[in-house]
């Protein structure tokens, strides 16, 4: 089978040119969605009958948690593509996504703790979901640390891809074992899966926020990838031309 079209997709120059359009679109979408979602969620959505206003933190917590998990999945897919088809752009995407994923996991943990205080009366409880999130954060740290430790950037990218894949196979196992551990030790008295009973005026802003976070993630990822592509291709003529064009603009 002819795979040249696929390799064209991996060409750094082509990516750099096309991604400036995507970047603009995603940034506008992210700003709009997050702005509308935040104002709607924080000011206009009705308070929860059980938790009062403290539930409003879900408008940050849930999108961050969604993104934290899908970012790792994306990294594993990128790792697979990079390893199997030797597509360098996938390697770039994997390494550049890891810090964003780690920050999202951190935000999800932090907001979870803030939410936990009024709900459970403690900043931290060993709830299955929080524990899984904490482990996910450690997995992100592993990928970032490995990428930093290996000086050769091609090797670093490939090593991270292998680690991300091993981690991705492990994540469901970790998730189920932690869930099982949790039910064994402290039967959950209060679950926060109230989505089915949520009123539309509560979940609509949440949906906007989730979409907004995804767009934000895409925009930041593209920004980071473009920078890394410039760095990696610094020797080529098109990057030199692009750099002089950018410098011209600044002057």
């Amino acid at each position: 089978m002819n795979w040249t079209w696929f390799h064209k997709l991996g060409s750094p120059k082509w990516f750099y040119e096309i991604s400036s359009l995507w970047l603009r679109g995603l940034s506008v979408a992210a700003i709009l969605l997050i702005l509308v979602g935040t104002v709607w969620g924080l000011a206009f959505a009705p308070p929860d009958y059980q938790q009062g206003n403290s539930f409003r933190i879900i408008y940050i917590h849930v999108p961050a948690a969604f993104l934290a998990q899908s970012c790792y999945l994306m990294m594993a897919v990128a790792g697979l593509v990079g390893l199997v088809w030797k597509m360098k752009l996938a390697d770039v995407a994997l390494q550049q996504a890891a810090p964003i994923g780690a920050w999202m996991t951190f935000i999800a943990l932090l907001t979870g703790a803030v939410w936990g205080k009024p709900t459970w009366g403690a900043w931290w409880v060993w709830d299955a979901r929080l524990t899984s999130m904490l482990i996910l954060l450690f997995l992100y740290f592993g990928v970032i640390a490995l990428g930093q430790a290996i000086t050769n950037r091609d090797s670093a990218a490939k090593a991270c891809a292998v680690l991300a894949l091993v981690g991705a196979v492990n994540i469901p196992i970790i998730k189920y074992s932690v869930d099982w551990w949790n039910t064994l030790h402290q039967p959950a008295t209060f679950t926060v899966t109230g989505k089915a009973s949520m009123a539309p005026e509560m979940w609509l802003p949440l949906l906007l926020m989730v979409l907004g976070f995804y767009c934000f993630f895409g925009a930041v990822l593209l920004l980071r990838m473009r920078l890394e592509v410039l760095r990696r291709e610094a020797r080529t003529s098109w990057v030199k031309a692009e750099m002089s064009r950018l410098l011209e603009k600044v002057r």
Partner: protein
Amino acid sequence: MTSPFLETQSLACERDWRLLFEHLDLQLLPGQMLQISGPNGSGKTSLLRLLCGLMQPTAGEILLQGQPLHTQRHALARNLLWIGHAAGIKGLLTAEENLLWLSALHVTQDREAIWQALAAVGLRGFEDVPCHTLSAGQQRRVALARLYLPAPPLWILDEPFTALDKHGVAQLERHLASHCEQGGLVILTTHHNLQDKPAGYRELDLGQIAA
């Protein structure tokens, strides 16, 4: 005309942001010997490792019998004998045990053949001594004894003459030349001026390419 056994097309290698060489075109036929020379850090070892498939080139392609190397991993492995700077000799194992394992990576040899190979490199009487008690030159001889066992045709050797004495150098040169004359292909790096050059001798100076 015979087609080249090993071929590089516009090969480039970059290590830690430094370009070692680029646009390297080589065509190697069976029966040839290629000596790669050049100053330290000019990419001699890197080129050998590229040809072995241990490293991936930054740009360009390597062809084995006309096919891209990454599709020919198994064919390369069956034809290749690689002795690197570190030759895979375990200090805790004896010379015989080391060779037994290293030859098993290709074709398992019996004890008789291994003792003969060790005798050929002048290590008679050292067969069952742990290698860490041997001198550096003797350890190198253990590694080189692989060349005296029935071996694949393509030999890629990184500084094979290191630590050998005068007699050992001359003997190895003769052995490499006779391998080429029997239709083998030898690629080696060395600073040393070869005395015994086979008919298909070629030299590649990486110092000149990089400039």
